[in-house]
């Protein structure tokens, strides 16, 4: 038997993907070739482009029909061991070459197998199907035929082959208009059912075909008459015929790309509108991956097209007079960046690099100052995407600007935040400032970058002039910009009344206080001295005098954040300036009503009590003893006083025992985190060595309080451990990852997130697949029916979360870091284990009763 000729092995550049945990994991880029090993064995090999001696892929071509070609550049198959793999070719020719090779090898192998008389199911799968030539009279028959064929995998396959090979769809299309002319609702409904069935065959080729220019209008025309809605006709044709929806800011010369843009749009329309209600999971994921690969192609093409970029960014030059065009160009870039979020990190880096070289930062500056709020929104969007992608790079640019004595982006942002009138944009700008100054924000992208492509990382590092440390950046922020940012707060000094704040002021102050909360958590010691030198604590306290309750609440949260840090520096500040005065005022104003403000106050005092923050307890009781003693509607304040008394009286043996139990069991920070949202981890982490040193250097004269950070645990908390794993516990990461990934439920929603996520600021070191990994799993992507479990939080934490989601609430502190915490270790508590008893309860009972026992009498 003649050997299959190996395909001409010119270098076919290709990316190798492997499906891991329902994300396409990039195994690297290399050159692909097909080799014939022997008469009955052929392989596909991919050698790494960085290191040609390293094989990224070596796979034996099997005779079974497991290979699929999608679009022009993608081959997908399942390995013998069940792993799903994909090759994404740079050139369609390369793909076609390998595809032909695979086909030839397969047919030869199958012929061989048949010769041996070992053919198993081949006969069945080629069982052909014939449908009659469609006309209005036989639609019923066709529908029944199709329904029958639809029930078996073989039938579906045969049906798909027949439909394509016989050009069946174009034959169906004219019937729609005929039936419309005859006003034959039943025929129209049948046509719709037939068309739905065709698409839900979930054959990539068919789906790609139905959105081509020739047939798309006809296809959606048929789909307008849904038998499920007999009295309703959709207007898909009208919608899709409207050419004006396509905005071409800069002419795209490449026909293929233009086509792809339209196809993508139609695919989205199919997915969101036409089929939204009836999509099954496999079809949904096929649509998604088609859309994804199209978008990747489009964006890759554009960002590599120098002339195009030049013209695009040229629009922002002085000679362009058309303001609408400028606006559209901003929106265009925004859309590019949105798509880029789902690109591979290296591809995305390249895109941003090209954009920046063409002047992206100027565009952002332009957009941020635009009079139209929607453009400002787009501008901040682009900026946030850029920072999320690579905060280091943005910061280095800002550094550069500072050195060149031009106005850095931070200052622009600050100025704009202070004057922004659109409250939504204002919120977004406040978020952007936070992200820019988040010391954890850089690690994710660089880490991911290093993983995917170390060469590239080196290149990037090379191009950036001496990567400035995040630390320096933050330092310079406090040297230069922070004052400007918080000036409005400072200006409150001497203000007589808070009664007449404008809406704008209220919103500005709450953003500023939230940013300040973020800063004291994230850059503890710099912010500390900044706050001290500017006297901001007292200013925030002043805000509690305003009539707007939500602003009171925000201010209160500032103090809760400070106290939550377990830092006596903050605590002394608060005490020294008598800042509990306004807090108690809120408490007395609201009590004993049961409302949010009152609860927030109680939570604060509960925290102080539970943590037994001695310096504060002492201050409170010594200053306000009588006032506090009068509060009886909760026992928090009695307990506070008791704490104080225990501290200051020589304990009897009995009391010693009591107080020992109560302090021990009630104190641990861990417990606190659990009570109110788990932010202790972040708080404690901030007390790092550097800070310690800093503090010791300048401020070690008074030692009356506790050590500056109450370290997490006395003995009481240990039982919690087995239940919840914390990211800080090194060595746990593996377990957690296994747990997270082994959950079969991780799959369903990666799609929705992958298309829209940004890099997460991962504080944990665990290498997790980020939302940047591209192609979609071919099947099982989404499981809507079994609802309960797909709401797993673990799921979300696995697909990366949108950062703005976590940032815009000042309380969601440790966004991703803390997400890990909720993945509990497997096998600790079966939950059904009657004898052993639940761990959690055995923890909490002694805790509480111990505490109250100590205080109650």
């Amino acid at each position, binding site marked *: 038997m003649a050997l299959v000729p190996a395909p001409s092995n010119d270098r076919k550049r290709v990316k190798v993907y492997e499906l891991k945990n329902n994300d396409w994991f990039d195994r690297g880029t290399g050159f692909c070739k097909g080799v014939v090993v022997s008469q009955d064995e052929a392989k596909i090999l991919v050698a790494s482009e960085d290191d040609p001696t390293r094989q990224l892929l070596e796979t034996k071509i099997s005779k079974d029909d497991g290979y699929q070609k999608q679009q022009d550049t993608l081959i997908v198959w399942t390995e013998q061991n069940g792993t799903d793999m994909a090759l994404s070719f740079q050139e369609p020719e390369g793909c076609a070459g390998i595809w032909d090779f695979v086909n030839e090898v397969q047919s030869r192998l199958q012929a061989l197998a048949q010769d041996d008389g070992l053919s198993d199911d081949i006969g069945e799968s080629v069982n052909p199907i014939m449908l009659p030539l469609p006309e209005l009279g036989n639609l019923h028959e066709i529908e029944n035929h199709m329904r029958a064929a639809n029930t078996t995998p073989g039938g579906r396959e045969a049906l798909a082959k027949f439909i394509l090979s016989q050009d069946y769809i174009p034959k169906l299309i004219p019937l729609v208009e005929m039936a419309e002319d005859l006003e034959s609702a039943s025929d129209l409904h049948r046509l719709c059912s037939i068309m739905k069935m065709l698409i839900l065959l979930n054959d990539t080729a068919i789906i790609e075909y139905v959105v081509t220019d020739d047939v798309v209008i006809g296809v959606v025309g048929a789909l307008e008459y849904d038998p499920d809605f007999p009295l309703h006709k959709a207007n898909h044709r009208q919608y899709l015929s409207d050419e004006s929806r396509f905005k071409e800011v800069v002419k795209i010369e490449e026909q293929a790309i233009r086509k792809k843009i339209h196809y993508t749009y139609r695919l989205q329309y199919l997915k969101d509108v036409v089929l939204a209600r009836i999509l099954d999971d496999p079809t949904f994921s096929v649509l998604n991956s088609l859309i994804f690969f199209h978008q990747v192609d489009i964006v890759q093409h554009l960002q590599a097209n120098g002339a195009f970029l030049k013209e695009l960014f040229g629009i922002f030059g002085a000679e362009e007079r058309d303001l609408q065009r400028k606006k559209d160009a901003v929106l265009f870039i925004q859309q590019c960046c949105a798509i880029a979020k789902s690109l591979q990190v290296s591809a995305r880096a390249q895109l941003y690099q090209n954009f920046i070289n063409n002047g992206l930062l100027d565009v952002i500056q332009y957009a941020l100052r635009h009079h139209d709020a929607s453009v400002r*929104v787009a501008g901040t969007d682009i900026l946030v995407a850029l920072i999320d992608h690579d905060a280091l790079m943005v910061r280095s640019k800002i550094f550069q600007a500072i050195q060149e004595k031009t106005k850095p982006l931070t200052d622009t942002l600050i100025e704009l935040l202070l004057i922004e009138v659109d409250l*939504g944009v204002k919120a977004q700008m406040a978020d952007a400032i936070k992200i820019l100054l988040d010391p954890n924000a850089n690690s994710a992208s660089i880490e991911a970058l290093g993983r995917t492509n170390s060469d590239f990382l080196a290149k990037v590092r090379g191009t950036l002039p001496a990567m400035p440390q995040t630390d320096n950046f933050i330092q310079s922020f406090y040297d230069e910009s922070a004052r400007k940012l918080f000036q409005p707060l400072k200006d409150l000094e001497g203000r007589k009344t808070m009664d007449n704040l404008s809406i704008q002021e209220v919103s500005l102050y709450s953003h500023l206080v939230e940013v300040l909360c973020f800063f004291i958590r994230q850059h503890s010691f710099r912010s500390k001295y900044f706050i001290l030198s500017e006297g901001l604590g007292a200013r925030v306290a002043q805000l509690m005098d305003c009539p707007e309750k939500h602003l009171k609440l925000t201010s209160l949260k500032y103090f809760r954040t400070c106290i939550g840090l377990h830092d006596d520096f903050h605590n002394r500040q608060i005490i020294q300036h008598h800042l509990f005065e306004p807090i108690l005022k809120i408490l007395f104003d609201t009590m004993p009503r049961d409302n*949010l403000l009152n609860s927030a106050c109680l939570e604060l005092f509960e925290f102080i009590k539970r943590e037994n923050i001695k310096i504060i307890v002492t201050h409170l009781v010594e200053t306000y003893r009588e006032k506090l003693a009068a509060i009886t509607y909760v026992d928090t304040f009695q307990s506070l006083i008791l704490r104080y008394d225990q501290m200051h009286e020589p304990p009897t043996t009995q009391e010693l025992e009591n107080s020992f139990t109560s302090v021990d069991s009630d104190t641990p920070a861990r417990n606190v985190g659990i009570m109110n949202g788990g932010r202790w981890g972040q708080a404690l982490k901030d007390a790092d060595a550097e800070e310690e040193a800093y503090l010791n250097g300048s401020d070690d004269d008074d030692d009356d309080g506790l050590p500056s950070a109450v370290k997490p645990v006395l003995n009481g908390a240990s039982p919690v451990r087995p239940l919840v794993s914390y990211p800080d516990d090194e060595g746990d990461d593996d377990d957690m990852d296994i747990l997270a990934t082994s959950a079969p439920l991780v799959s369903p929603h990666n799609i929705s997130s992958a298309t829209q996520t940004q890099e997460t600021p991962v504080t944990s070191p665990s290498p997790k697949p980020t939302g940047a990994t591209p192609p979609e799993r071919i099947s099982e992507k989404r499981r809507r029916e079994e609802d309960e479990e797909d709401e797993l939080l673990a799921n979300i934490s696995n697909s990366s979360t949108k950062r703005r*989601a*976590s940032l815009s609430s000042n309380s969601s502190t440790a966004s991703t870091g803390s997400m890990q*915490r909720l993945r509990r270790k497997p096998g600790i508590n079966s939950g059904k284990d009657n004898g052993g008893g639940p761990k959690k309860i055995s923890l909490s009972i002694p805790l509480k009763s111990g505490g109250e*026992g100590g205080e109650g009498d």
Partner: protein
Amino acid sequence: MSIGGSDLDKAITQLRACRPIPENQVRELCYKARELLIEEGNVVGVDAPVTICGDIHGQFHDLMELFRVGGDVPETNYLFMGDFVDRGFYSLESFLLLLCLKVRYPDRITLIRGNHESRQITTVYGFYDECLRKYGSANVWRYCCEVFDYLALGALVTGAATSLSPTDGPLAENINIENFPEADADIEIETLNANGEIMYRCARNSDSQSSVTSQPNSNPASSSPIAPTPSRVGAAGTGATSSANGSTRNDTGAILCVHGGLSPLIDTIDKIRLLDRKQEVPHEGAMCDLLWSDPDEIDGWGLSPRGAGFLFGADIVKCFNHKNDLSLIARAHQLVMEGFKEMFDSTIVTVWSAPNYCYRCGNVAAILELGEDGSNAGYVRRSNGDQGGGGGGWILGSNVGVGGVGIGNGGPTGGGNGNSVGGLNRRLSSVLGESGRTREGPGRRYRVFEAAPQDSRGMPAKKPVADYFL
């Protein structure tokens, strides 16, 4: 720009037609709502009569159907237990309409927070995308998320009647009338279909309830022996009342409504008050548990497969109810094909109000009506802090499992021993259901309904992307 009075009514009209209101109105609305919600406690007090609803999930047309079946606002008082958004295609319209109604009739409608009322969840499950599509920016999503942070965590319904005033609605077809209680009996449970026809009725303290008790509690999905009505629903879900046969005194306890369930960190309702709820839903801790936990057929607490919250068993529910003088916990959070499902001897009920969930699950939905206790002898709200000296002992009780009746790990040594014993005894008796101490459940009228007729609306679809560059 300001939204109030007639503007508000206009907005309501517009939203009822499933048309979004302009961004600036959303902002005003959200600010107004924030002012209101900040005054609510973490657990809102609600007086019966009230109709309790479960998850809505952006199924706007089905929400309209709900109002049709349950009565319109403000004629009917409503309590929605969260999960207004995500999954369905009209989260925005659904949530904004509910919020408008809240602002317009603050005392008539109560909204509490579900696990989907969160930034992180909505970015994954649809609400974020929907806002982006409908407004072109995330601003509206931000405003809504800000409101989410202010939503109460639970509600406490007081003053509910122990028995229902009988409806004079017609009987549904195929009802076997012989199973019906006497006309003068105290009706504890009644199930009506969407047309107000009676599908099932059950009296309190009646021996003739063989049909009810014979229903396998563990298999609520099995077709009911009663009422195979056109709406496919019998009285499934009522795992009712084999043990709830106490006397007919009018002393029903309060009903706690939360989205998810209980938390091991919360043993009294007053503890919920000590939370600062104005935050993104955390990933652990009491607030998280209230929104994420599920009841399950286990003893004590178990890990939740959801990755947040816990599973809790019958013993936990019974202890909690006893300790807090509750007769029932109403919660949502889990799809139940029959619309509602009572568990653990009717000490907890799941109410689900999104029919044909995700436009494909084929389930029916339900709402739970609690009547007003006309005799005024109903539950009197506790003043805070009257737990008094019982504290130590009560807590000990939660260590007691049902099965083994073993005493967990004995609790702390030392003080409060006398209390503990008393508390323990009471706890045991309540857990074992031996005495009449168990609070009687309120009279419960479930209205079951299916998805809105499809032709009453367009085909559900997402809003297409308007303009495109790429």
